[in-house]
């Protein structure tokens, strides 16, 4: 398989094999739009499930107990505070987490004593926490501020680096696309949103842009001299870049996803609810979508934006006209979506009859 993969990589690089990603961009836009819409719906219903950090309340952790006896914990809490509907979750191999609404200090003591008695454990195996409702909000508010500041900086850096604002714009649209889909999927799975989740979402910002920059760097390299030749359009050059980085993108995302996946598996099946699991899910989905979007969304978007530039538009028209003129006899013409292997040309090939000198008066 590795040989096949390497061969496939070669074909992609030389342009022998090429996936017309940029040309068929409307298809990818449509897929993404559907995904974004589905995520938007998921965000409304069932919606995100706020963790205790966002609801506020008291939390007890009983460690070193058999975890199958959740009803006992519920009963203990209700003995102290009858209207309470505590949420009991298993954490790790031998711990129970009990979340309640906000309790007074005396009630907290009572519940702790009750739990110690009910589970027959020492006081030091029970911990309690109080989380004000503003804590989570605060974290997310900071996250939003962070997002905005980050976007500003990154737009500046990218505009300067690529000397073109359109790349920055495309990258940022792709970023929002990633973020919305990730949050939507998180809502669909229904795990609690904790500050760890927010951290995960924020990391996706970095990763998504990072991945897009790598792809764009290749696009920039390939398209640098587009205007000085008339064989290929900007879109074709960009498409080649995407194809050439495809192997890199796949390898990178596999390598990045493997550790995250291993945290996710251990977090979800061994540790239960907690920081690692929440962060890993957000990252897993985000990295996956991020890789997808930098290939299928960011680059096509960038091409769409660039093609609005008068210079590029003129150039594209010129290339297509020349091609139509030259290839007229072959009848392939300007069909949109025709894959032109835009690889750097090599000497020694045959250009077809269209390239031969024409007889006068024909």
């Amino acid at each position, binding site marked *: 398989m590795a040989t096949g993969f390497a061969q496939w990589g070669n074909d992609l690089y030389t342009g022998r094999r090429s996936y017309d990603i940029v040309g068929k961009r409307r298809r990818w836009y449509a897929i993404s739009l559907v995904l974004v819409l589905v995520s938007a719906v998921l965000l409304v219903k069932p919606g995100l499930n706020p963790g205790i950090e966002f609801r506020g309340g008291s939390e007890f952790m009983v460690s070193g107990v058999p975890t199958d006896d959740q009803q006992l914990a519920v009963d203990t809490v209700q003995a102290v505070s009858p209207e309470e509907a505590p949420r009991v979750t298993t954490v790790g191999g031998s711990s129970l987490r009990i979340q309640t609404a906000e309790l007074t200090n005396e009630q907290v003591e009572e519940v702790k004593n009750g739990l110690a008695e009910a589970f027959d454990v020492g006081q030091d195996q029970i911990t309690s*926490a109080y989380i004000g409702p503003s804590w989570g909000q605060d974290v997310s508010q900071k996250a939003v501020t962070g997002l905005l500041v980050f976007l500003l900086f990154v737009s500046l850096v990218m505009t300067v680096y690529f000397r073109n604002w359109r790349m920055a714009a495309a990258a940022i649209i792709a970023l929002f696309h990633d973020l919305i889909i990730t949050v939507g999927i998180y809502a669909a799975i229904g795990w609690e949103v904790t500050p760890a989740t927010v951290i995960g979402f924020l990391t996706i910002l970095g990763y998504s842009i990072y991945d897009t920059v790598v792809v764009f760097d290749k696009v920039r390299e390939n398209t640098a001299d587009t205007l000085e030749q008339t064989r290929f359009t900007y879109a074709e050059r960009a498409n080649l870049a995407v194809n050439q980085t495809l192997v890199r993108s796949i390898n990178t995302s596999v390598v990045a996803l*493997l550790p995250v996946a291993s*945290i996710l598996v251990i977090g979800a099946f061994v540790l239960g609810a907690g920081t690692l699991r929440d962060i890993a899910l957000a990252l897993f989905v985000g990295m996956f979508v991020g890789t997808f979007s930098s290939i299928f969304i960011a680059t096509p978007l960038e091409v769409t934006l660039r093609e609005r530039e008068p210079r590029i538009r003129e150039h594209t028209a010129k290339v297509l006209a020349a091609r139509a003129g030259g290839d007229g006899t072959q009848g392939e013409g300007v069909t949109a979506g025709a894959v032109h292997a835009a690889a750097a040309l090599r000497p020694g090939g045959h250009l077809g009859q269209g390239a031969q000198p024409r007889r006068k008066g024909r």
Partner: protein
Amino acid sequence: MLGLLVVALFASILAGTRWSDASLTPNLALDLEGGTQVILEPVPEAQGDVTSETINQAIAVIRQRVDASGVAEAEITSQGGDKIVVALPGRPDEETLDLVRTSAQMEFRPVLVMGAPAATPQDPAAPPAADQPTKASPDGPSDIAYYVTPEVQQEFDALDCTLPENRTGGAPGDPDTAFVACDQEGLAKYILGPVEIPGEDIKSATSGMGATSTGASTGQWVVNLEFTGAGTPKFTEVTTRLASQTPPLNQFAVVLDALVISAPSVNEVIPNGQAQISGSFTRETAATLANQLNFGSLPISFTVQSEQQISATLGSEQLQKGLLAGVFGLLLVVVYSLFQYRALGLVTVASLLVAALVTYGVITLLSWLQGYRLSLPGVAGLIVAIGITADSFIVYFERIRDELRDGRALGAAIEKGWERARRTILASDAVNFTAAIVLYLLAVGGVRGFAFTLGLTTLVDLLVVFLFTHPLMILLGRTRFFAEGHPASGLDPRRLGVDTLRYGGRGRVVTPGRRASGAPAPESAREPVAVGSGGGMTIAERRAAARAAQAAAAPPPDAPPASGTDEPAAERAEGSDR
């Protein structure tokens, strides 16, 4: 270079463990080590009251209280601009937590009785105590007869201010009754009257050189105190009354957290709300007092935003499983890169190991020098960093392979590939680092630990790629194993498609056999690479292929790809100079 760096890093850590209190493992944050974390949120009384200055003063006061209560290694920091995070190891008792939770109270009370600090029932300095509060109401706040009841007197007599545990401060007393308090240095003890001016009425306090009325410097350090509009008339009233009293009744005490931080005597009526406290101040003591007075005037109080106790067992379980996940993930990465890049995968692995080593060293060093603590989100950040770090190598390797496909010899390919990969790596790492910095500066608690490790690993990544991976690649490029493109090296030109049959110009065709042995591919762009696209072959190529097939019964070269995406239109684009 990098070797030197690593050696220096670990040498300093070892030296630290040998001669100082450093340890070979990084310190763990509360969520891994267990303990209690209280996050305090400021409640400003007016807009713009929460500044970094007021927060820092508040932190100083909380630290003073917690330290006085004997809790070791409490960590009090401000995060995200305005939050105060108090981290206490272990399971602190309620009293300690109360010290943190309650905000400092400063108040001005008149001194009724002042005595030597020791607990002496027959304190000679104490005036004879009144018997009963015979009066129905006091004549004024300085009315000893009313306020100093036998009970208060008894409490006063029993109090021993020479013992440090009696000087830890605590909850402020009832503002309307007498209050017994120690001097913060333990030099005296006091019976104080009811609260006359609350701390909020202080506008500001500064320390400086005292000046006479003519403006000449007295050469003495003083503390200048200014009252607000609300405080000025109260202060005028107090000074009016106290100025005519005899010592110690002419003193007023500044009480912070139930400790008397200063008890100046009033020499004259101060009508304009601008007081000057003089005495045997040094520069430091004057500044400290001014700071403390300022804290009393802090326009903010604090509410508990969250309070978490984390059990040590749970933390260590999470750490253990997290590390297990990390190791497992790393193994998967190793297997995958060996599979994809063969021997080159070993370079990835070696680079990752070096990166891990450097990161570990830096974290350990920071936790010794800067008090950095590794938290669970920090561990998650490290695990995520595996992917991002490995990506740099992948970008680099892919660029080298691209150059090989273009027909360059390995040495040239490494050089050229590095040039291009360097740009990409720098740009993408810059973005990552920006993200980490923004997160770090804006975030609180866990997010911060995560951002820190993310930023750190980004830097380490750059360091390793520049100082380890690239030099290593150059060295490897000189070995026969890699330069000749051994099939297991991951840089085999044949696998990279360089060596397929192709037209060599002037009617000749380059076949695989002719070039395989060692002679580096020409560096010019004239010959290399299987060009072209689709199933198209030139006539010459087809003939050569047929010959080759006859001769060696080799599998037919380059069957047209079956992929549907590959449209015949591509045929035309077969190479030529443009």
